[in-house]
């Protein structure tokens, strides 16, 4: 779905290569680059976008699986089913926060 939109609005769009592992481990690595690796570490957290109801996530997440990532317009957050949202400079901070809160 995002591919359709990208090439409709931006036919000459070229996908950027992923950063090297050393760059990804840096403290200032962009969230868009780091988040996919966190998805590998914990695949249970879905990534919601604007067309998958990231902005009304209480209807998507459930008490059984209350946490989700948000990626809308290049802004990232950690969402909870109770309607709350959490932001940080680095998505790894959000991931550590999630680990501490979910007690898993």
């Amino acid at each position, binding site marked *: 779905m*995002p591919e359709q939109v990208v090439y409709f609005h931006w036919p000459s769009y070229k996908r950027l290569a*992923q950063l090297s592992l050393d760059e990804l481990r840096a403290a200032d690595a962009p969230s868009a680059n780091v988040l996919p690796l966190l998805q590998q570490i914990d695949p249970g957290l879905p990534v919601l976008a604007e067309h998958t109801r990231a902005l009304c996530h209480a209807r998507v997440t459930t008490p059984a699986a209350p946490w989700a990532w948000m990626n*809308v317009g290049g802004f990232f*957050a950690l969402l909870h089913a109770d309607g709350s*949202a959490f932001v940080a400079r680095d998505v790894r901070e959000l991931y*550590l926060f999630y680990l501490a809160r979910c007690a898993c």
Partner: protein
Amino acid sequence: MAACACERETASWCSPRPRWYFGQLEYKHLIVWNAATGWAAYFDYCPFVLCVLKRMGYWIRRSWRPAAAENNGTDADAEALHGTVTVDAAGWRTLATPALAALLDAVHTFAALTNRLLSATLVVEPDASTRVELHAHHREASLDDYYVNAMLADLPLGSIVQYAHRFQFLFHSITQVRPYSPRSPLCCLTDGRPAPRRAPRS
């Protein structure tokens, strides 16, 4: 806001639209990170959204027709061609539903995301980059996810839902395409041989 308040008498439907598209394209520059509070906005977004909704309401309620001296047909043709207006046999123009839906998509996404970012709770975890261990296999296995995430981050705010509403009858999932493709992605799982195909449903 001054830009919104002006042109009250002379504005057309086209006046709020490029202003809003500018907001979509430049959104990343309107929201800034503050280490003490999280995301912050350079502007008061509530009056801006209300102003745009007010202008939309004005045009939704009206039909209009240019004076005979101005009606050379080109403007009406261009607007109808772009799906902005519908023109009846008498030449009266009304706002087309797709144009209204596109702007509503943008307004809703803009307001919802701004509210979400400004009301979110700031999380600070020291040394997160070293406490979360990333390995090479995480990077290699996540390349497909990375491309999707990078595209989502590159797209202007609201453009995905605008596209989804405008082309709602196009395909929305690769699962629709795969059963009809002679070399489906399943070939990767079967050593290059075509994947077994199900009998067509009667």
